[in-house]
């Protein structure tokens, strides 16, 4: 009432005109306030994870290879018979369990990093009836919580989650998505920064987190345990600058635990062992900020270099440390003790900035090419007795990964890997073997339209095989392939193809029937 009276008094004066102009400015301010309190406006920028989802959906329509990074609808896929090509050996009976990221989308949002997807356990069963496949998500505490809300709520490995909840430790962010372990009659989904999750071998349902001992609840347990010839395993957990060593016997009982304080932290995905030693190489990838995802918090401190931790299996309490040039390995081929006390190992090695922390991240985001294809190479790392520094020897073989471990704790006569010098997708489509001088022996390449995933060494009926999955990137189909390890050049001797694509995965383990 007061305002109306005032306007009447002012009439058409200049003051009155300016007073009429004020409400328009106020309107603009009110609109800004609407936006600030969440009233949608078409000119608001959507959140980056929603942009990612839109971009992926658009690209997927015209790029079938992106099916390798699509989400599977929970709870997983039902039993399906695979279409057989060739002849599966009758002596080969069992189930290949494979783990990997299977869910990248919730609500309108999509993850931006390959490692973030929730773990999807796949099982390929080979028996007299053929090959069947099914899959099921690992029901981690994160997966259960985010399934209820259908929102990403928990900190991820590579994607910054807006308004992520506070968590008490890495195990709250466990996706259970990296690998599989069979021991003591049980099967576990493995992550690396938190607990193993026990799963039912037949239904793939999640049972519970594995607590090896009361004070180990929630502790890191890596995705790459190393087997001893007696069937026991060594494993490791890394948290800040603490290294936790586990020794579990073949019945699944914990034998030994050793906590090692390191001179500094770093990053490690797997480790290796010779007959007498456990060997860990930590890359100088460490927490430099507290905001963002796990990997976004980390930065390369190349000036520090990587370092090795060597433990005598007979006395885990006395670590030996050796400095090393900066770089990282995901996977090791073998490790061995030499007569003069030198420790040697072979790895697929990444220099700093070689795309190590975010392989295929751009595909997850719906881009159709990689700016920085992975650049890894086969190296031998040598640590002479009493040396304070290890030495790296390049083997002249580039773009190889997933070494197939055939010999435990010995130098393998031949070395087997997945590789391909150039591939339009920056992927691996071949399998190859190298002799002791790292020169080519056997080789088979599926060509540009395929991505060959991890192949595993399997013995059956006195023969040596490589068994693993393959993705047809042109037709968006996933299959299982089998090679005679000593005749790779013959190509796959048997194949089994699904009528659909499954997401590309990480690691697996074969459980003989």
């Amino acid at each position: 009432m007061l305002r109306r009276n005032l306007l009447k008094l002012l009439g058409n004066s200049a003051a009155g005109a300016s007073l009429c102009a004020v409400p328009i400015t106020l309107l603009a301010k009110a609109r800004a306030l609407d936006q600030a309190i969440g009233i949608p406006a078409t000119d608001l920028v959507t959140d980056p994870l929603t942009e990612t989802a839109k971009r992926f959906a658009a690209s997927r329509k015209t790029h079938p290879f992106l099916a390798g990074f699509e989400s599977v609808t929970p709870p997983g896929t039902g039993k399906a018979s695979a279409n057989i090509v060739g002849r599966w050996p009758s002596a080969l009976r069992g189930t290949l369990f494979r783990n990997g990221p299977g869910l990248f989308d919730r609500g309108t949002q999509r993850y931006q990093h390959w490692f973030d997807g929730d773990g999807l356990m796949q099982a390929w069963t080979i028996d007299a009836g053929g090959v069947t496949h099914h899959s099921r998500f690992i029901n981690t505490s994160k997966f259960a919580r985010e399934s209820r809300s259908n929102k990403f709520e928990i900190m991820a490995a590579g994607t910054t989650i807006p308004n992520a909840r506070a968590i008490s430790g890495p195990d709250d962010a466990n996706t259970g998505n990296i690998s599989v372990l069979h021991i003591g009659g049980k099967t576990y989904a493995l992550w690396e920064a938190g607990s193993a999750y026990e799963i039912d071998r037949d239904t793939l349902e999640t049972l519970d987190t594995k607590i090896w001992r009361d004070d180990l609840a929630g502790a890191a347990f890596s995705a790459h345990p190393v087997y001893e010839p007696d069937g026991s395993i060594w494993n490791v957990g890394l948290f800040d600058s603490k290294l936790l060593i586990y020794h579990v016997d073949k019945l699944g009982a914990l034998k030994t635990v050793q906590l090692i304080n390191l001179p500094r932290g770093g990053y490690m995905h797997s480790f290796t062992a010779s007959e007498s030693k456990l060997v860990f190489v930590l890359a100088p990838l460490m927490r430099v900020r507290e905001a963002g995802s796990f990997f976004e918090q980390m930065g390369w401190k190349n000036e520090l270099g990587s370092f090795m931790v060597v433990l005598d299996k007979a006395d885990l309490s006395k670590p030996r440390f050796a400095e090393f040039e900066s770089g990282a390995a995901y996977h090791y081929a073998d490790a061995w003790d030499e007569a003069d006390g030198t420790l040697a190992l072979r790895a697929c090695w990444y220099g700093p900035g070689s795309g190590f922390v975010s392989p295929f991240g751009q595909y997850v985001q719906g881009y159709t090419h990689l700016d920085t294809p992975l650049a890894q190479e086969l190296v031998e790392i040598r640590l002479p007795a009493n040396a304070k520094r290890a030495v790296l020897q390049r083997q002249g073989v580039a773009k190889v990964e997933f070494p197939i471990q055939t010999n435990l704790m010995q130098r393998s006569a031949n070395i087997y890997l997945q590789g391909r010098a150039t591939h339009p997708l920056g992927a691996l489509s071949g399998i190859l073997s190298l002799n002791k001088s790292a020169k080519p022996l056997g080789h088979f390449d599926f060509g540009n339209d395929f991505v060959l995933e991890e192949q595993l060494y399997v013995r059956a009926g006195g023969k040596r095989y490589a068994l693993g999955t393959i993705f047809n990137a042109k037709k968006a189909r996933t299959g299982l392939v089998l090679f005679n390890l000593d005749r790779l050049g013959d190509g796959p001797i048997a194949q089994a193809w699904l009528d659909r694509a499954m997401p590309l995965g990480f690691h697996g383990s074969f459980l003989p029937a």
Partner: protein
Amino acid sequence: MRNIYTLFAAATLAFAGVTNAATLTVNITQVTKAAGKMAVKLVSSSAAYDGEAEATAAQMVDVKSVEPISLSFPDLKPGTYSVMVMQDENGNGQLDSNILGIPKEGYGFSNNPRVMRRPNFDETKFEVKDADLAITIEIL
């Protein structure tokens, strides 16, 4: 109808009644285990936060269900405070942690800081003024 002077006088009297007597209500949510006791400590300094000076107040309540727990700290002077909560699930009087130092029992801090380490006083502090205040602490 009250005239403006009556209103003003009433307001003055109202202000006069609200000195140094705010009540802080702490709502504890996300409890996942109905076990043991919830220990709640209210501190007003960094030294008290680090256990080097006395706390302002503390309370302990039985955790009989996973429903949110609400408790109050009355008669607080205006100032800067922090609240820490710990669920002693097994009744051993301490926050159990695993071999790597990561807590195994539930805990929480005011402001619910998103850090994967013990937050410091600055990250958990909040202001109490003349008016009653309610905060929510999520158990991790």
